[in-house]
C-alpha cells in the first residue's frame, strides 16, 4: 500500500511537472499566433514593410516557443497511457475521442501550415502565406478546444454510462462533452493566452524603448499587444466568473477549498487576502484563518450571482448539508455515506462479475440494479476515511488568490499601457513604466500557472470526479521507475527551457539592433 501511494504521488508529480512546463509555452502560442496573423494582415493591407518586419520579428519568437510547446505536449498525451493506465481503460471510450479529434482536425492543420508560415515566404503567394498564418492560429485554438473539452469532462463526467461487463464507462452522448464547464474552461484558457501574449509583447517592446532602439516599432507592437491583451483579459475575467458558477454547481468541494471555507452560510463573504490555518480540519474547532481580510457578500456573488445566496463550506459538504434554490436546508449525501455507497457499488460489481461467469442472467440483473443505484459514488468506494476525499486546501486557496490578484493587476496594466502608448512620445520617456512592463512579464506566467493549480489541485483526489480517484487510476509500475522518469523529464525540460529563454533573449537583443522601422507605406 505504501508503494502504491508513492507511485500515485510521483505519478501526480510527473504529470503536474509536464503540465506546468507545457503551459509555459501554450498560452504564448495561442496569443502570439493571433498577434502575428493580425500584423501580417496589416502588412498585406498596407503593403508597408514596417508591418512585415514586425510580423517576422514576432514570428521568430513564436517559432522558438512553438517547438518546445510541441515537445512537452506529446508527453502529456502519452502519459495518460504510461502513468494512468487504469484511467485510460476506465474512461478511454470517452476521453480518447477528443484526443484523436485534436490530432486529426487541429494538430495536422497547425503543423502543416506552420511550415508554410516559416519557410513559405518565397515559395507561396502572399495571400496563401497569410492564410497559412491564420490557419496556424486556428489549428492551435481548435487543438486547445479538444484538450480542454477532455479536461472539463474529467471534472464533470457526463454523456456516458457504466458497462459492468467490461468494467469501464462508455459514451452515450457526444454533445454532452460540451458542458458549461467545458465551454467556460476553453474560453478562459484561450483568452488568458491572449492576455499573456499581450503582456509579453508589451514587456519585450518596453525593453526596446528602454534601450531606445526601434522605438516606433515598439510603440506599434504595444498598441497591438495592448488591445489584444485587454480584450483577452476582460474575456478571461468574464469566463472566469462563468467557471466559478459552474464549479459551484458541479464541484462545490473545489469552491470551498479555493476559499478555505469550512463552515459556509448565507451572504458569504470572500477572503481578499488571508492565511489559512494549517491545523484546521473538517472536524475540529480551529479557526479557518490565521488572518483574513474579507469582502462582504463576495463569495455568494461569485458562486451564485446572488448577494444572499448560501454557499456551503468543506465541513458542510462532508456532513451532507446544503440549501436548495428555495432557501430550504436539505440533506445531501454525506461523505461517510458516499464511502459506504461506493463500497456497495463495488460489491454489486463483484456480484455481477460472478453471475456473469456463471451465466446467471437473473443474478446479473439484480447486481446491475444495485450497481446502477450506487454508481454515482463508485469512486468513494476506494476511500477508507473522509479525509482522503478532501483536496489540499492551502495550495488551492493561495493559488486562487495569486491568480485573482495578479489578474486584477494586469487589468490596470493594460489600461495604463494603452493610455501611455497613445500619448504622443510620452511612454518613450517613462523609464519607470518601461521597467514595470518588463518585470510584469514573469508575473503573468505566475498568474496563468496559478490558474491551473486552482483547477487541478482543487479537484483532487479525483481523476474523474466522484468515479475514479488518482490512487485507482495509475499504472502498475514501481515507485523507483516513476521517480527515475520524473527526474529524467525534470532535467530535460529544464535544460530545454534554459536554452529557450536564452535564445529568446538573444533574438530580442539581435533584432533590436537591426532596423525594424523601414516604412514604405503608400
Amino acid at each position: 500500500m505504501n508503494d502504491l501511494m508513492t507511485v500515485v504521488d510521483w505519478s501526480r508529480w510527473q504529470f503536474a511537472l509536464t503540465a506546468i512546463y507545457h503551459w509555459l509555452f501554450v498560452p504564448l502560442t495561442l496569443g502570439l499566433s493571433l498577434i502575428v496573423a493580425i500584423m501580417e494582415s496589416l502588412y498585406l493591407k498596407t503593403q508597408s514593410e514596417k508591418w512585415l518586419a514586425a510580423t517576422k520579428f514576432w514570428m521568430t519568437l513564436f517559432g522558438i516557443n512553438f517547438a518546445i510547446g510541441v515537445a512537452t505536449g506529446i508527453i502529456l498525451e502519452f502519459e495518460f497511457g504510461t502513468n494512468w493506465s487504469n484511467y485510460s481503460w476506465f474512461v478511454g471510450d470517452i476521453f480518447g475521442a477528443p484526443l484523436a479529434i485534436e490530432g486529426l482536425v487541429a494538430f495536422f492543420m497547425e503543423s502543416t501550415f506552420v511550415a508554410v508560415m516559416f519557410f513559405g515566404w518565397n515559395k507561396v503567394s502572399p495571400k496563401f502565406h497569410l492564410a497559412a498564418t491564420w490557419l496556424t492560429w486556428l489549428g492551435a485554438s481548435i487543438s486547445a478546444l479538444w484538450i480542454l473539452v477532455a479536461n472539463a469532462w474529467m471534472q464533470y463526467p457526463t454523456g456516458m454510462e457504466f458497462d459492468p461487463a467490461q468494467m469501464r464507462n462508455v459514451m452515450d452522448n457526444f454533445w454532452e462533452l460540451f458542458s458549461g464547464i467545458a465551454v467556460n474552461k476553453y474560453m478562459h484558457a484561450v483568452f488568458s493566452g491572449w492576455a499573456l501574449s499581450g503582456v509579453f509583447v508589451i514587456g519585450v517592446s518596453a525593453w526596446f524603448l528602454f534601450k531606445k532602439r526601434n522605438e516606433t516599432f515598439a510603440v506599434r507592437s504595444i498598441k497591438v499587444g495592448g488591445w489584444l491583451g485587454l480584450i483577452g483579459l476582460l474575456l478571461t475575467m468574464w469566463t472566469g466568473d462563468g467557471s466559478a458558477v459552474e464549479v459551484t454547481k458541479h464541484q462545490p468541494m473545489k469552491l470551498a477549498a479555493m476559499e478555505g471555507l469550512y463552515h459556509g452560510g448565507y451572504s458569504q463573504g470572500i477572503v481578499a487576502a488571508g492565511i489559512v490555518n494549517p491545523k484546521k480540519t473538517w472536524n475540529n474547532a480551529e479557526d479557518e484563518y490565521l488572518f483574513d481580510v474579507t469582502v462582504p457578500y463576495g463569495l455568494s456573488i461569485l458562486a451564485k450571482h446572488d448577494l444572499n445566496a448560501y454557499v456551503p463550506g468543506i465541513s458542510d459538504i462532508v456532513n451532507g448539508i446544503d440549501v436548495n434554490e428555495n432557501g430550504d436546508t436539505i440533506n445531501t449525501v454525506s461523505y461517510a455515506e458516499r464511502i459506504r455507497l461506493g463500497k456497495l457499488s463495488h460489491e454489486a460489481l463483484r456480484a455481477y462479475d460472478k453471475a456473469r461467469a456463471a451465466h446467471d442472467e437473473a443474478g446479473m440483473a439484480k447486481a446491475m440494479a444495485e450497481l446502477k443505484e450506487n454508481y454515482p459514488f463508485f469512486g468513494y468506494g476506494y476511500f477508507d476515511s473522509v479525509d482522503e476525499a478532501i483536496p489540499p486546501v492551502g495550495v488551492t486557496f493561495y493559488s486562487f488568490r495569486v491568480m485573482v490578484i495578479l489578474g486584477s493587476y494586469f487589468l490596470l496594466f493594460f489600461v495604463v499601457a494603452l493610455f501611455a502608448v497613445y500619448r504622443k512620445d510620452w511612454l518613450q520617456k517613462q523609464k519607470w513604466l518601461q521597467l514595470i512592463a518588463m518585470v510584469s512579464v514573469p508575473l503573468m506566467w505566475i498568474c496563468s500557472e496559478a490558474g491551473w493549480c486552482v483547477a487541478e489541485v482543487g479537484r483532487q483526489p479525483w481523476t474523474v470526479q466522484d468515479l475514479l480517484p488518482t490512487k485507482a487510476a495509475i499504472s502498475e509500475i514501481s515507485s523507483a521507475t516513476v521517480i527515475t522518469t520524473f527526474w529524467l523529464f525534470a532535467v530535460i525540460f529544464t535544460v530545454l527551457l534554459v536554452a529557450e529563454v536564452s535564445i529568446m533573449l538573444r533574438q530580442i537583443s539581435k533584432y533590436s539592433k537591426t532596423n525594424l522601422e523601414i516604412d514604405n507605406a503608400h
Partner: protein
Amino acid sequence: MTLEYLQNYWWLLISILGSLLVFLLFVQGGQSMLLGTKDVTRRDLIVNSMGRKWELTFTTLVTFGGAFFASFPLFYSTSFGGAYWLWVLILFSFIVQAVSYEFRNKQGNVYGTKTYDVFLFINGFVGCILLGVAVSMFFFGAQFTVTRTNLLDSGSPVISQWAPTHGFEAIFNWKNLVLGVAVFFLARMQASLYMMNNITQDPKFFAILKRKAFFNGALFVVFFLWFLGMLLTAWGYTVIPDAYGSQVVEITPYKYFHNFCEVWQAGVMLLLGVVLVLYGWGRSCFSDKYTQGIWFTGSGTFFAVMALFSVAGFNNTPFYPSLLDPESSLTIRNASSSEFTLTAMSYVSIVIPFVLAYIAYVWYSMDRKKLTPEEMKTTTHKY
C-alpha cells in the same frame, strides 16, 4: 454499421496512420546521417530538407497515438502503462527532436549546434529502432496480463499488469530488434531517396546520397527478409470469442502465413509493396539522374506496412498477443471502444481525405522549389 464493421474500419484507419508514419520516418533516417556528414553546407541541407517535414512525422505519431487511444483504449492502457520504458525512451527521443531544429542554429542556444545535432541523431537512431520494436510486439507478443476485476482491489487496482522489466525485455529481444533495425535502414534509404529528389545543384552530394541509398537499402532488404522469414514461420494465436465476452485462444502453426493467404488483400499489398520498394530503390541506385525513387519506395512502404497491420489484426488474430496469459491477448474485438464512440469517431474520420489533400497541396507547394547549397548560404529562414 455493426460494431464488428466499425472495429474493422478503425483497425484499417490505425493501419493507414501507422503506414504513413513508417513512410514519414524518412525524417528520422535523414537525422541519423547528420553526425557522419562533415561538410557544414551539406549538414545544413540535410537538416533543412528534413526540417520542413519533421512536424508532419511528429503529428502523425501523435495522431496515431490519439486514434489508437480512441479506438482501442485497452491497447493504450496495456502497452503504454506496461512497456513503460520502451515508450518513455521513444518519447524522450521525440522531445529532444522537437526543439533541435529550431534551436540548433540560433545564437544563445547554450549547448552548441553539435548538441542539437546529437539530439537529432538520437531521435533518428533510437526512434526508428524502438518504434520497430513496438510494432514487432504485435506479432511476437508481449509479457502482460489483463484482469478486469483488479479494478475492485483497492490495494492493487490496475487492470493491465506487465513483467517487472517493463519494456526492457522487449527492447532486448532479438526478434523485435530485427524489425527495429529493418525500420532504421528503411528510414535511411528513404531519406537518401527523398533528398535526391529534394536537393539540387550539388552533384557530389547526389552521388553520396545514391551510395547511401544503395547500402542502406541492401541492409534493409536483408533485415526485412529476416523478419519476414520469422513472421511466416511463426506460430500465432487464433481467438474464438464467446457470447459472454471471454475468449478461447488456440495456437496455430504458421499463423501469419495463413493470414496472408486467407486475407488475400494483405498478401497482394505485401507483394505490391515489396515490388514498389525494390523498383524505386533499384532504379534510383542504377540510373544516373533518377530522382523519383522516393515515391515508389514510399508507396511501397505504405502498402507493405498496411499488409503487416492487416495480418496482425484481422482473421481472428490478436494484434497484441500475451506471452504470459494467451486469454489476455488483445484483439480488435475485446480492446475496442464502444459502438457509440466508434460511430461518432467515424463521422469525424470523414475529414481525413481533406486533411490528406491539404497536406499534399502544401507538400507540393513547398517542395516545388528544390533546396540548393546556395540557398543555405543566403536565406535567413533556415534551421
